């Protein structure tokens, strides 16, 4: 196994394990921290694949932005008492179904094989992957990019409407 493969498996197992811990841990704060760990190890995998830009954005937006707000909410709202026994039972039931679905998906993966695309990496390296991302974002994906701006605006307006005191 090459060095990068070893690093990949280490990062990937950290990501998967901490993702599992997000669900299993009893304290919401722990869940949040495990989720940050997942995000960071995914960012590490991006670096491994020479997608530094995506990695930096992953850390900046998910780990540094969104999760901080999550944590904020968790710290302010004390969730400790809400996890009663009924919820536990419910959780056991849904985790059974979830496990079954995961098993099914894993089975499907074991039956098929996803081809790697060897052409992608050199194209990205040319002129740094920043430039490649910029080019595809503003040329091929110009329209979705612009629609996304409307999407974010709607999200902003929506939050303000819902959070505003009185009309």
């Amino acid at each position, binding site marked *: 196994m090459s060095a990068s493969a070893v690093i990949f498996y280490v990062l990937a197992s950290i990501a998967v394990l901490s993702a599992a811990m997000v669900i299993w841990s009893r304290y919401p704060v722990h869940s949040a921290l495990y989720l940050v760990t997942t995000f960071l190890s995914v960012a590490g995998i991006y670096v491994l694949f020479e997608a530094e830009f995506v990695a930096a954005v992953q850390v900046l937006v998910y780990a540094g932005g969104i999760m901080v707000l999550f944590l904020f909410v968790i710290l302010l709202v004390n969730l400790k008492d809400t996890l009663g026994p009924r919820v536990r039972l419910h959780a056991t039931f849904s985790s059974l179904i979830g496990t079954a679905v995961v098993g099914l998906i894993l089975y499907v993966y074991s039956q*098929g094989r996803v081809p790697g695309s060897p052409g992608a990496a050199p194209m990205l390296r040319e002129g740094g992957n920043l430039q490649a991302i910029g080019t595809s974002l503003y040329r091929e994906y110009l*329209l*979705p990019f612009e*629609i996304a701006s409307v999407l974010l605006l709607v999200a902003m*307006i*929506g939050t303000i409407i*819902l959070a505003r005191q009185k009309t």
Partner: protein
Amino acid sequence: MNTLFEPNYLRLISPELILTFCAFLLLGLATVKDRESKAWTPALAVLSCLVTLMVLLALTRHLGLETLRVPDLTIGFNGMFILDAFSVFFKMIFLIAAILTILISDRYLELERAQAGEYYALILFAVVGMMFMASAGDFITIFVSLETMALSFYVLVGFLKANRKSNEAALKYFLLGSFSTGIFLYGVSLVYATTATTNLGLIGASRSLEALQPDRAPIFLLGVILVTVALGFKIAAVPFHMWVPDAYEGAPTPVTAFLSTGSKAAAFVVLVRVFTMGFARLGDRWAMLLAILAVASMTLGNVAAILQDNVKRMLAYSSIAHAGYVLLGLIAAGAAHDVPSREFGLEAVLLYLLIYTFVNIGAFALVILLRREQIVGDRVVDFAGLSRRAPWAAFAMLFLMLSLAGIPATAGFVGKWYLFGAAVRAHVTWLAVVAVLNSAVSLYYYLRIVVMMYVREPAEAGRIVPSLGQRVAIAACLGFTVIFGIYPQPILALAERSVLALAPWTS
């Protein structure tokens, strides 16, 4: 490969641009304190939609889409945007649905004391999202426009902040909607993993052949299934319908009307586009998948609707059932072996969605009519004696209910005739039989309201006087149902021509 941005592209999206601009304008207007000028907001919103509709039709005429050469489409933004007769048809549905919704909103919002300019802006933003969905030629475009629509709806559903039901509805809709988004993205990522593209045309033309090689097929198919599941959420098909009754009941009634027509049609346009363009080669497989959803939706929707005492909830289950009916057309398009039968199935889908838009918004308009100070008016018993209190409104409701049930001489009958006919033509007759049986069941709960209106004594006296907007909306819905129930040729021809745009993929 990377063509630069062309100024011509702006022309293609000009209707969407205009509508977005109008939405900005309404947002700005919402900050104005003056009540007098605020009263103009709904009128301006209707005007925006009308202008957009006009521009859209002018553009269609200018580009020659109505003469319909095959392949009749104009592709822009590197395949991200497709302006064809098919998308124009749906854009018309969305704009009409929005206009009707705005017309029935004004009085309702006043009664709920939730009058706000942002409401209309959000409706317009939702329409912008839907219009881009209709034209999306790539999974990425589908995703962002779908989310634009969905986010607008999450907020609209929870617009009555003082109302606990509205809050609950918004939360449930939001959570399940987010899940479906996640599932959609997961499915798309698997499709991308096996085809190396997100472009629907490319997937349909060549990449799906490679993806169907034995080593990749399981993963590709899993992707297709997940995409189906996610879109099943949006069209409210069983078993992905959990959010529907609560969201429909809790949301402000005009929003429910819009959600059940516009949002459903938008989800169907994506469904049709994805399945006929991207996954066309898998026709018989996804037809099986959708058949399960269709049978479950029709049966559960109709049976559960019988048990409801709340009209909004009843219409929610009825809307689930109708999603099942409409799926019949798509199944026919997938299962049929000859091109005319496939096109016939898609035609039926288009036709029914157009008819359903008018009929369902009309039904909700009547529910809104019963909303007065102190009275919510969404129980079945609230309809008691409506024929004495508002004879014309009761007459309209009678017709709309008959249309939903699919009684001859109404537009609903025409729609169902074509849907079930398509199923028969595609040799899935058993589905048509199930659908007919279900229609018979549905008659019970639709007629219950009719009986309420005409047989029962009114619980309270006093006439109900609709507002101008309500009158126009109800008249339009009633007129549509009656006229095209008797003489459906114009809308039939329209649907027929619009489906031709999908010809390169259906054949």
